[in-house]
């Protein structure tokens, strides 16, 4: 789960990372008030959306006066950036910047440890630095049994600054960032830029934190940071229903059990010339209610022209899925054709249930996908 910049700032602030004071506004009035409270000088208005490149999209603006802060906020609030509507802006003083570094921590699959990445070439997209000038990035895997050791932080900071006062300050900030990372089950925590001001102060000007979704069950405080207004409503509904759903741009709705099979199903739709409208995994349990919710979510997408069920019953009982399909069609009439592939646990019973309402079930995945693609193309 990605946090907004203002939320990431809260976590960093709690850990002691030096930052400029700032606050979040949902209305131009609030933005103006914050700008005044910050002294009335120049501030930056930053759109709070889960999308990169918000600067280029016009989501970041300098405001020289509180009145300008109001005006800019009025423009940015409500703006759409990469399909997401800006609901909040962060208002922070504009900083006088002498240098910009990058300090990030990711959960690294290869070393199976938190890995620091730091670079004196900050302020820009670190992926680009990694691609074009990898030698400018210093990496360090941290042993989680011992944590970030003082000499390790110092060694990293020495790659960023020539002056030792800055080195010490940056090393301390790295320790704080590590605390934020491990203390909140993050998969990513980065400060970009970690800036110095002309007087030599080191401070974080922007922050990004992503939380491992698996942490949210045991961390209600973090789960409460989820901003559903920043997500597609269909994805919010799916999560509430215990489904894993990702909206895509195609017209073949997919309902599958298991993430691997769901991806393979989407791929097969594409292979046979179709375009998947979504990724949807109903998971291992075969609660008919989940099937009803899945159908409701998929049919609410006007792009969907045909629906495919692909269920390989293991733990999932295919008769439960069949019951769910039947119940759903009783609750709301399907406007698009549906192709059902079922095999595995309680398959015979499932077929019987479907046949009872005049529906057919296929046994073969390829055949089912070919059919649904043809149906979608015919309807388009």
């Amino acid at each position: 789960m990605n946090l907004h910049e203002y939320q990431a700032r809260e976590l960093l602030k709690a850990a002691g990372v030096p930052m400029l004071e700032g606050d979040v506004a949902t209305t131009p009035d609030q933005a103006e008030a914050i700008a005044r409270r910050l002294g009335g000088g120049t501030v930056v208005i930053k759109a709070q959306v889960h999308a990169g490149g918000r600067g280029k999209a016009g989501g970041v603006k300098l405001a020289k006066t509180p009145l300008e802060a109001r005006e800019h906020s009025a423009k940015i609030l409500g703006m759409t950036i990469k399909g997401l509507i800006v609901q909040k802006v962060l208002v922070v003083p504009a900083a006088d910047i002498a240098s910009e570094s990058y300090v990030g921590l990711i959960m690294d699959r290869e070393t199976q440890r938190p890995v620091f990445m730091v670079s004196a070439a900050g302020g820009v997209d670190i992926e680009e630095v990694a691609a074009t000038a990898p030698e400018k990035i210093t990496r360090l895997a941290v042993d989680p049994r011992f944590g970030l050791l003082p000499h390790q932080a110092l060694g990293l900071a020495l790659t960023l600054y020539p002056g030792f006062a800055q080195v010490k300050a940056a090393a301390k900030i790295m320790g704080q960032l590590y605390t934020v990372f491990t203390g909140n089950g993050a998969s990513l925590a980065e400060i970009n830029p970690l800036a110095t001001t002309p007087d030599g102060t080191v401070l974080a000007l922007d922050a990004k934190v992503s939380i491992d979704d698996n942490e949210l069950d045991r961390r209600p405080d973090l789960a409460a940071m989820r901003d559903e207004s920043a997500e597609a409503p269909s994805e919010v509904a799916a999560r509430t229903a215990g489904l894993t759903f990702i909206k895509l741009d195609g017209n073949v709705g997919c309902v599958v059990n298991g993430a691997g099979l769901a991806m393979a199903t989407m791929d097969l739709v594409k292979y046979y010339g179709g375009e998947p409208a979504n990724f949807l995994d109903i998971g291992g349990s075969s609660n008919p209610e989940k099937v009803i919710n899945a159908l409701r979510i998929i049919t609410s997408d006007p792009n969907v022209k045909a629906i495919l069920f692909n269920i390989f019953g293991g733990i999932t009982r295919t008769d439960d899925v069949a019951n769910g399909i039947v119940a759903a069609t009783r609750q709301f009439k399907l406007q698009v054709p549906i192709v059902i592939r079922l095999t595995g646990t309680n398959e015979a019973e499932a077929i019987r249930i479907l046949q009872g309402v005049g529906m057919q079930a296929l046994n073969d995945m390829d055949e089912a996908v070919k059919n649904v693609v043809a149906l979608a193309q015919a309807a388009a």
Partner: protein
Amino acid sequence: MSIFIDEETRLVVQGITGREGSFHTNHMLAYGTNVVAGVTPGKGGQTFAGKVPVFHTVAHAVTATAANTSVIYVPAGLAAGAILEAADAGIRLIVCITEGVPVMDMTRTMLYVRERGVRLIGPNCPGLLSPGSSKVGIIPGNICAPGRVGLVSRSGTLTYEVVNHLTKNGLGQSTCVGIGGDPIIGTSFIDVLAAFQADTNTDAIVMLGEIGGTDEQKAAAFAKANLTKPVIGFIAGQTAPKGRRMGHAGAIISGSSGTAEEKIEAFRAAGISVMRRPVDVVELVRARLR
């Protein structure tokens, strides 16, 4: 015969009295797996299914039953602790079925099991099945058949889909191993490839990967350098968008790395036959076994 599990397997089920644990223990017993003990703290002294003794701790179970393998069905927040407990009790193979284990827990857990030389499979995996011999986890027994194809996969139902094609076409399996869909897992493709290479009862290997990470790329390089047996590979997630977690915590394309194209290219470069569809497995295995 098989890898990792066989007739010597003496299984303890952690979380045996839970909903998942009891359901799958019954299936494992039905398949013939030698389930010697169960563990649920607070339920020590009970008996499961009329024959499996339940203990408060894995240590007690090992002392009483000489269990050497563990399978874990406890809730996500307790899974890492269950792995540590099994490792501490002297279990040599731990299979963690549980999904949703916080990744931060796994960083420490992996170091703990590594120090003890214990093999962990998973978490968030369907487990293993050695057809006709032993089932540890949740892979349906009825879709498998004994044979000489080794299968290793990051997913669950996709594995069933592929195994089903193999079995229906007379291509039995030596062992099917689900290594799990999480970013940090105990056993990698490479570990399983090496075991299949060493297994005299495996002739060909099917490897089912997906987007995210570089495990498949490394496995491909390993296969090219170390395997003499043919490998047939698949990558799920060609149509997956970047930056979105496709169900599995590990199935996510970060930046420009971990894409299906990159992995398929690595397979091809290593001489691995690449399936475009699950059903292709039959033809490609047959071709490579000729």
